[in-house]
């Protein structure tokens, strides 16, 4: 059953690549993510993210190296801890694109953490609204599930490696156009201590899933998380 499923998946993906002229981008995504706690229940999360593209083109055509700085994001999210499981938050993201355009985004989120034995599962629900001078207003609804696993022992302790996996689904509405995006991330992390982590991994995203031409994005994702 499992083999059949994998076979169908591989054939489907191969078919997409063979018959549809989809677009792709491959590059480097770097992220510095910090948070500072105050008043026990409040946290301010600040994220700086850069995207640089090394390969870009249409699937099925030869790949040529072409460096391009794509964009930088600054995201600030203020969260309130409702209890040790649930948090709510609001935030703002400012994006500087390669052509100098600035995009604004407002964010609302709700997150919860489930614990089953030594397994931690984090669920994040988000809505966001994006707009800019040369950008149509876009509304998105997002859901992400993440988990991590210690490579040594049962819990992720100081100076230990771990694996992190996440999967996100994004529905978007722009003018009257509804679309869907799926993201998957597999990272190897190193826990310097509970407040300081470095992760590197592969981040795959499929954008415009409901359009005829889809966009495949592949990133080498390098992230640094620091909590004050």
């Amino acid at each position, binding site marked *: 059953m499992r083999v059949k499923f994998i076979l169908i998946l591989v054939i489907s993906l191969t078919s997409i690549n063979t018959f549809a002229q989809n677009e792709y981008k491959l590059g480097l995504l770097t992220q*510095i*993510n*910090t*948070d*500072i706690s105050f008043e026990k229940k409040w946290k301010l*999360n*600040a*994220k*700086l993210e850069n995207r640089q593209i090394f390969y870009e083109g249409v699937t099925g055509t030869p790949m040529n190296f072409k460096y391009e700085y794509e964009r*930088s994001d*600054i995201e600030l*999210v203020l969260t309130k801890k*409702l*209890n*040790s*499981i*649930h*948090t709510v938050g609001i935030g703002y993201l*400012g994006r*500087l694109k390669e052509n*100098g*355009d*600035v995009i604004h985004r407002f964010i609302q989120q709700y*997150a919860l*953490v489930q*614990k*089953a*034995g030594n397994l*931690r599962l*984090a669920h*994040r629900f988000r809505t966001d609204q994006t707009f800019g*001078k040369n950008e149509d207003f876009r509304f998105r609804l997002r859901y992400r599930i*993440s*988990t*991590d696993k210690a490579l*040594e*022992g*049962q*819990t*992720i*302790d*100081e*100076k*230990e490696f771990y694996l*992190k996996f*996440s999967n996100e689904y994004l529905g978007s509405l722009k003018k009257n156009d509804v679309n869907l995006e799926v993201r998957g991330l597999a990272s190897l*992390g190193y826990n310097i*201590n*509970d*407040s*300081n*982590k470095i*992760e590197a991994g592969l981040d795959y995203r499929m954008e415009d899933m409901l359009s005829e031409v889809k966009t495949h994005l592949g990133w080498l994702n390098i*992230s640094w*998380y*620091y*909590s*004050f």
Partner: protein
Amino acid sequence: MILTSNMKLKSLVTVTLLTIFFQLAAAQTKVEKEYRVKKNAVPENALAFIEECFPGSTIKWYHEENAKGSFIEAKTRQMKARYSIKFDLQGNLQDTEQIVAFESLPTETQNKINSFLKNRFTKHKIVKIQQQWLADKTTIKSLITTGKSSAGYKTNFELEVRGTKDKDIDFFEFLFNEKGKLLKEYEIVQKNINNLIF
């Protein structure tokens, strides 16, 4: 207009970066740690004891450091039961734990624990229960291999509980004796989940 927006964004980046690096000095450390060790790093007496108790079973060895000191721990499964046996660094047996179901506890103990948890929380969920045996090596070996022992031994139950009270949800660890009397409790400090949420 573009230049002004860019400058504002660059200023925000600079301020955020400065804040990050300025506050790096405030880093805090945590002492708890558990990591895998190879068989040859385990004291011989601990190794021999485990091989006697679990012949042919796959054993995973860990080094554990906590506020009480450093320990060597063996984790294994036998007949679907999951055991963890802790030794000091000289190989002296410290305690033996086995993951059990709440229903397997004596009825009177179950009732007392349930009553305690109902008084303590408006809502609760038992996440994990470990049965602890405190005895000498001969008794522990007999308990593991035959399920009984003629010699005296102590049984405690360690419960990890998710408890809700006044809209607050927290995780706790409670240690009860075999009669269901509370011996110890502490709140479990949740690890940072920043990297899972953002």
